[in-house]
């Protein structure tokens, strides 16, 4: 049974570690914040200039000058800091962020990522995505395994313009969890969703991938 969107983010949350500095992309990755294990201290960075993002504010605490990178009103937790965009991206580019989780339109078998533009459609811009994938220590992609009509998104080569080359470390979809093995230049299937077979997975995947000898069922 494929994972739900919430379960995908729950699985991604298992990659968090105590004390981690984490940047969550807009959309599904944002939900990872709901699954931080109790007792674990994770610091969320928002690239518009905040380290220590808290939950949404109560109605009376809404502040137009306190927003996240998705332009949503948010709060700052105790211990938070504000800084400029250049300081924020120095933090990102300089490798001071432990983990970033973001969505994708395509991931290639050699860990390229495309998530910012579709040719022929109005281009909105890459925002901070290219900086994040080039600078953050570990990049996890959460995405639906296929696009509309069952078109594979985990592909041999990205047909869409790239956000970054060889930058994805882990891929989590509703069907499986893959880890990129740098030495072999391919992703390895580590976990598969309950009651999904490798054959079914391959049918929905264009990319070549390795299978871990100790392949497990996704555990949440």
């Amino acid at each position, binding site marked *: 049974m494929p994972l739900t969107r919430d379960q995908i983010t729950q699985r991604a949350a298992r990659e968090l570690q105590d004390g981690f500095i984490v940047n969550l992309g807009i959309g599904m990755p944002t939900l990872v914040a709901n699954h931080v294990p109790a007792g674990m201290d994770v610091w969320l960075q928002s690239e518009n*200039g905040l380290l220590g993002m808290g939950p*949404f504010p109560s109605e009376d605490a809404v502040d137009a000058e306190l927003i996240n990178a998705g332009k949503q009103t948010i709060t700052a937790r105790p211990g938070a800091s*504000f800084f*400029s965009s*250049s300081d924020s991206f120095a933090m990102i580019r300089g*490798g001071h962020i432990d983990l970033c989780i973001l969505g994708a339109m395509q991931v290639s078998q050699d860990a390229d990522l495309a998530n910012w533009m579709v040719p022929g459609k109005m281009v909105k811009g890459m925002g901070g995505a290219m900086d994040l994938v080039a600078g953050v220590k570990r990049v996890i992609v959460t995405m639906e395994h296929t696009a509309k009509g069952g078109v594979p998104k985990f592909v041999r080569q990205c047909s869409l313009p790239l956000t970054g080359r060889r930058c994805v470390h882990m891929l989590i979809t509703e069907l499986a969890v893959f880890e990129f093995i740098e030495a072999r230049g391919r992703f390895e299937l580590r976990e598969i969703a309950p009651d999904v077979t490798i054959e079914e997975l391959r049918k929905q995947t264009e990319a070549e991938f390795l299978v871990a000898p100790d392949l497990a069922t996704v555990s949440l």
Partner: protein
Amino acid sequence: MATKLFPDASAAFSDLRERGVLRDGMTVMVGGFGLCGIPEHLILALRDSGVKQLTCISNNAGVDDFGLGLLLRTRQIAKMISSYVGENATFEKQYLAGELEIEFNPQGTLAERIRAGGAGIPAFYTATGAGTVVAEGKESRSFFRPGDDTRFQNRHLAAARLGGGPPASQGPSAVAREYILETGLFADLALIKAHMADAFGNLVYRKTARNFNPMMATAASFVIAEADQVLGVGEMDPEAVHTPGNYIDRIVRTTCEKRIEQRTVSKP
């Protein structure tokens, strides 16, 4: 020293044409992230000045009826240098009609280009965008990531090119990667939104309204700031100053609407 304080935004703009600061085809930096920390009144004054064919350097392009969207409506902008322009239908229409040029920069590259421009650095290397369309037409070079090479600090790359020096790195994990050359940005005019200013121009920003404002304040020939509060010289704690006053040419106290793009609240 002549006062930097002006009663309102239009007064701060009134003599800029005759002083040669405002001219068609000029480049303007405008602070803000989304609608947060944008110089609302200075944008209106820029619109009312009638200056045309602007190149605007700003992370976003406002929305249809607010922020830089207002200058798109009046077709005063010929080119935008931005990282994301998603929330603006006017923008989309003019872009698709070929009336508006856009140069997309990765957000961190944009921020650093402005910082570099203000700091007198004409160009710098970054890994951001290497191997993507962003790298097209730009010089590239291999470097070790600074943290991977604490012994040689990339100096040996130059030595190796001259035929000497060990091409060794600090550790086995160090792998040279591709970096692209990005240039610094400098504008004719920058419009800044601060929370507090003093009469010398020292600025303090508030929360995430800081964003691109501090770098832009350093990267233009003429810089105007609007602030929620204006203090006398000596009334601001020097330890608290974010932007030193020497960067600022004019100051206006304003009351901003501070529009919210996405009002999200917690469930009670």
